[in-house]
């Protein structure tokens, strides 16, 4: 990767490994031709993880036995000349809010320390059925609540581009793993920006699928009407390939969308010529870092050069998205996290001999400060006397936002914005101020509330070498268009 000079010495030391081909197509060709074995590839990644993880804190646990068994199956297929499944031998990491049978699943929280779920998440099972080799579980903010990965009970992830800085969050481990080539691709989850923002901070591609496109079965719930599972990868085409594998109807998730799933990689090959691209002024105002703005504007120029029409669009409800999001998300979180009570699984406090005391002690000992803050805010917003003023009001604003996007997509095929107003910030810089941290989600929560899809694609860097990402939003179920636009921006880098 071209960013190599910015990487810490441990990363530089393994430069030859970084420079190995790492597109799905190249890895697949090597496997099919016998130039690489899946078991050697997986072992190579485990060596690299052992080398880098003490610095970057990307992985919380490894699933080596399961990975090596899967890799051996792929090698056997290749040796016999049998057809290889679509993700044969591709080493992939899984955010630790998605469950893998028998592997630790902490959600970045002490309350789930020691928990080994007895089933696989649908997205995990589909990856493995497609031949992927699942390396392990990736660090994240506790219950996916955070924008910096500093809320993990297991310590912050460091950004591989600059280890003094956060990788973003909550899927910080998922983004850092791809950036540092500690996995070829990863799964993350996005509730208010948790795939797109860390992807932008680490300089990788991250996909927010349409709500309902990917099953939430086996995802430890944060805010059920907002939570999405999506891929992160080093390039757009591989991210598109992954989405086609994990997407599709699933009876285990009542909100799963039955729409057919296109071959997104093939769709992304169609080019961006003739597409109408909307640019909303509301995303380029006060608070936007000038270097981020410049990089995103260069990306927009690249789209013009690729034959797109650029049009202004107006999304005036944008400024109300953060308050609406934090009310809806915390209200849902307060309900979802009620299940962590020490009764059925996870941490049970030994400090009480009554049921009520066991609940509250287990939760007090298990949850970190940000999770408690959000549970309290959500409980308050749902409590008698405040429900209409806060929760219902936020749901009304949510509809206004969603309808505004629907109207905008009558005139344009995609909308482009910065993914984050700022590049990766320093560890500790915002951790004392919840509102400053929430405002980092200002450009991402809108698509979360509206249920539409989006992609973060790297579109440049600041003078200090920090990656900048462009967010490409498209209408419900129109990931194909977002991928086409992302490919055009990527090609100009």
């Amino acid at each position, binding site marked *: 990767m071209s960013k190599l000079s910015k990487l810490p010495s441990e990363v530089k030391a393994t430069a030859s490994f970084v420079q190995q081909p790492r597109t799905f197509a190249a890895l697949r060709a090597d496997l099919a031709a016998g130039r690489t074995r899946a078991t050697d590839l997986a072992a190579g990644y485990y060596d690299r993880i052992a080398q880098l993880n003490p610095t970057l804190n990307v992985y919380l646990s490894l699933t080596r036995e399961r990975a090596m068994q899967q890799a051996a199956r792929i090698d056997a297929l290749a040796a016999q000349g049998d057809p290889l499944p679509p993700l044969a031998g591709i080493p992939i990491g899984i955010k630790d809010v998605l469950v893998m049978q028998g592997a630790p699943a902490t959600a970045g929280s002490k309350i789930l320390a020691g928990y080994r779920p007895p089933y696989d998440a649908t997205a995990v099972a589909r990856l493995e059925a497609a031949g992927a080799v699942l390396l392990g579980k990736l660090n994240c903010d506790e219950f996916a609540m955070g924008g910096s990965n500093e809320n993990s009970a297991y310590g912050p992830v460091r950004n591989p581009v600059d280890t003094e800085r956060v990788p973003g969050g909550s899927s910080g481990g998922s983004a850092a793993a791809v950036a540092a080539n500690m996995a070829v691709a990863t799964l993350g989850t996005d509730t208010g920006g948790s795939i797109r923002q860390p992807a932008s901070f680490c300089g990788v591609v991250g996909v927010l699928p349409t709500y309902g496109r990917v099953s939430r079965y086996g995802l430890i719930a944060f805010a059920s009407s907002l939570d999405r599972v999506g891929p992160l990868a080093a390039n757009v085409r591989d991210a598109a390939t992954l989405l086609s594998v994990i997407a599709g109807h699933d009876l285990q998730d009542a909100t799963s969308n039955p729409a057919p799933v296109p071959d997104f990689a093939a769709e992304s090959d169609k080019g961006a010529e003739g597409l109408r691209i909307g640019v909303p002024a509301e995303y380029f105002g006060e608070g936007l870092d000038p270097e981020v703005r410049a990089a995103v504007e260069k990306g927009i120029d690249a789209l013009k050069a690729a034959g797109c029409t650029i049009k202004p669009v107006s999304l005036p409800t944008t400024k109300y998205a953060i308050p609406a999001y934090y009310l809806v998300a915390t209200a849902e979180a307060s309900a979802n996290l009620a299940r962590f009570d020490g009764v059925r699984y996870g941490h049970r406090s030994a400090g009480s001999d009554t049921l009520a005391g066991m609940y509250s002690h287990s939760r007090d000992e298990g949850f970190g400060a940000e999770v408690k803050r959000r549970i309290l805010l959500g409980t308050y917003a749902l409590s008698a006397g405040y429900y209409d003023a806060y929760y*219902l009001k936020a749901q009304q604003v949510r509809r206004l936002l969603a309808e505004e996007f629907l109207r905008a997509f009558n005139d344009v095929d995609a909308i482009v914005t910065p993914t984050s107003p700022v590049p990766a910030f320093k560890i500790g810089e915002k951790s004392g101020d*919840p509102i400053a941290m929430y405002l980092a989600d200002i450009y991402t929560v809108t698509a979360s509330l509206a249920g539409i899809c989006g992609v973060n694609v790297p579109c440049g860097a600041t003078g200090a070498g920090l990656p900048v990402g462009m967010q490409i939003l498209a209408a419900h179920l129109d990931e194909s268009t977002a991928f086409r636009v992302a490919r055009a921006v990527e090609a100009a880098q």
Partner: protein
Amino acid sequence: MTAKVTAEDVDRVAELANLKLAPEETPAMLRDLNAILDYVAELNELDTTGVVPMAQVSELTNAAGENVLRADQVRPSLDRATVFSQTPVTDQVFFKVPKVIER
């Protein structure tokens, strides 16, 4: 919607949420909750008279306006032994908890 949260409110909400805050945690939570509630009060600027609250977005993804939720049918799930393998205290028939009613 600009109600100031008091320390008593924090205690009441914590009790509703089955959270036991340490005495030293309460002032910070009080400060943060008030700051956040002040901030979200911006929503009052927006006239939402007659707007139907949106609880979930799937309604938007079906052009026919049909309910896209699955039928509510009983189907097999994980067996008891599998589930209890993760339970802190169990007799393999029930989840065991401390006594519910004090006498």
